[in-house]
């Protein structure tokens, strides 16, 4: 992805989620406004054969990974044209053919699964890597310890990316995790780790790319912590716990504005080209909505299909 593609993808995520959230028929959603740079920076450093696994806050990562917005929108609206026929829904979508092995809404639950996918990659001798994206909340779970240890022992091609958005529901990361930096958790296992500004898509992309190079070379796992901010409440139905001033301060750090500003300074975008980008992503979202709306709900009989 070049800079413009990164910008467009971040804008797409923002617009997609905004449109989705405005609808009455999505149940509820975990959105990622403020965290787009993590998803996009990360995915811009992955290669086609790589696999990405995430936690429940997965719309941004799925779109950044290249899953078709139409099938994502249909999935989240419960339609059978969804990427998983509307059965996965929020927190569970999977599109392994596009390198998105899947979201899993159990906090920390995808860590060991990802290590298994990495073991499969390693055994099959392919040069691909697996990336698992998890939150600061997941860093408190024992799954991280067990998986880091085994991944280090077996030199699995597994890249741990912690999207530290400073919160697990209402609980501040400082109240839930003793380490000074979450990246410190990798050190005992000899796993190379770094902490990066998760609001800066360029920094994220560089950090992930350099970590991924090590992993791809066979050196074993690596760990990148991205410090980001969640602009909204935990979910579209959850109570916001931060005061308006804090939210204002946080939202001023918008990763999209930041990249836009940098590109403007560099002369790489103009008001006109930005308007074009804006129109492009709005068209993509509109197309996704139209696609989803046109699709039927699954039939009740699908409730018994594909069990086992």
């Amino acid at each position, binding site marked *: 992805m070049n800079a413009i593609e990164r910008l467009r993808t971040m804008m797409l995520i923002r617009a997609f989620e905004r449109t989705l959230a405005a609808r009455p028929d999505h*149940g*509820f959603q975990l959105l990622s406004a403020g965290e787009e740079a993590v998803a996009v920076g990360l995915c811009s450093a992955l290669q086609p054969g790589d696999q990405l696994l995430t936690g429940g806050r997965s719309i941004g990562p799925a779109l950044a990974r290249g899953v078709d917005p139409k099938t994502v929108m249909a999935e989240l609206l*419960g339609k059978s044209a969804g990427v998983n026929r*509307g*059965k*996965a*829904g*929020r*927190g*569970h979508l999977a599109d392994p053919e596009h390198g998105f092995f899947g979201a*899993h*809404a*159990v*906090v*920390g*639950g995808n860590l060991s699964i990802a290590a298994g996918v990495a073991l499969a990659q390693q055994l099959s001798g392919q040069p691909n890597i697996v990336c698992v994206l998890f939150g600061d*909340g*997941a860093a*408190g*779970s*024992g799954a991280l310890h067990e998986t880091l240890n085994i991944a280090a022992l077996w030199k699995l091609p597994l890249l741990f990316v912690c999207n530290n958005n400073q919160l*697990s*529901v*209402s*609980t501040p990361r400082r*109240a*839930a*995790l003793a380490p000074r930096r979450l990246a410190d958790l990798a050190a005992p296992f000899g796993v190379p780790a770094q902490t990066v500004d998760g609001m800066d898509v360029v920094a994220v992309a560089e950090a992930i790319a350099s970590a991924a190079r090590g992993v791809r070379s066979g050196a074993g796992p690596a760990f990148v912590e991205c410090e980001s901010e969640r602009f909204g409440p935990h979910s579209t139905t959850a*109570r916001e*716990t931060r005061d308006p001033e804090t939210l204002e301060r946080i939202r001023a750090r918008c990763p999209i504005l930041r990249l836009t500003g940098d590109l403007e300074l560099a002369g790489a975008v103009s008001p006109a080209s930005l308007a074009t980008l804006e129109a492009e992503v709005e068209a993509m979202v509109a197309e996704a909505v139209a696609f989803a709306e046109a699709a039927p*709900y*699954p*039939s*009740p*009989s*699908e*409730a*018994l299909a594909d*069990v086992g």
Partner: protein
Amino acid sequence: MSAKAPRVFFREAIARAIAEAMRADPRVIVLGQDVGAFGGAYREFEGLYAEFGGARVRDTPVAEAAIMGIGVGAAAAGYRTLVSITYMDFVMLALDPLVNYAAKLRFKTAGRLTAPVVLKTTAGARGQGVAHSQCLESWLMSVPGLTVVAPSNPADAYGLMRSALRADGPVVFVDHKRLYPIPGNAPASDVPVPFGQARIARPGTDITITAHSFMVQVALTAADALAKEGLSVEVVDLRSLAPLDIDTIAASVSRTGALLTVEEGQLTCGVGAEVAARLRERQGGLNVARVGAIAAPVSSNHVLEAAAIPDVERVAQGVRALLRARESGHPNSVCSGGGPGAV
């Protein structure tokens, strides 16, 4: 109770029971994710943090296994811990301390230690998908040493929580996402509901339905509908799954002669299978059928979720089918999974 009794929501009844227990006993503490200032995912802990502070109402990391173990350990060392695991699906992460340690502690130490811990957790489907919808009560019922309760209304939630926070050993308190917004009569303060006592939620003469938790509400609505068809349904709210009040069930069924067990969870090795088996160990010649989830995961998709779990119509169909079978002299029981095309 009079219709003028003050009304409270289910979630308020829980918060009140915990608050009163905490006032009465300084050794009661609460541990769980977002139980503090946030007040819990369903606001069922609201007010506790403000009144009792962070030492007794403790937000925890997302670490169900350790939190359960800490709750159990503190209980074994003299406290009464209430551990909140928001979704029952994640009780799986905490079964080792709960089942391998707490449930066996009094036995293995020959009574020298015991763990009066209360695990509060929320079961059931309400649009949250495959890993946030499961009902695992039957697993826990089968564990010797665990008490398992599952109230269906605010008053019982209050009374069973009070009992749980006074119990000698580990108690699992199962509530349900769809119960939180339900109002009911305010429970009388300080009146606990004893374990092992079912409740006739609605008297009737033609058939007995046993249910627990949210399915009691479904069964009551179905009973209303069936009354219009001239069928008189007795609804027994189990309230307590372990111990199970088989006396009350047996007395009801000996009056009605037919039993429909209703549960939201899986039928296989479920609550209904056990209720039916114990009942038949006492009386023969019964017409029995079970209603429960279809044998599939529960999607967050509203079409598929509705297809998977029992609702008023399926319970009513279960009643009708069972009574038809009785009339036609069908020897014994009829099964009805809650699924599409089932019954």
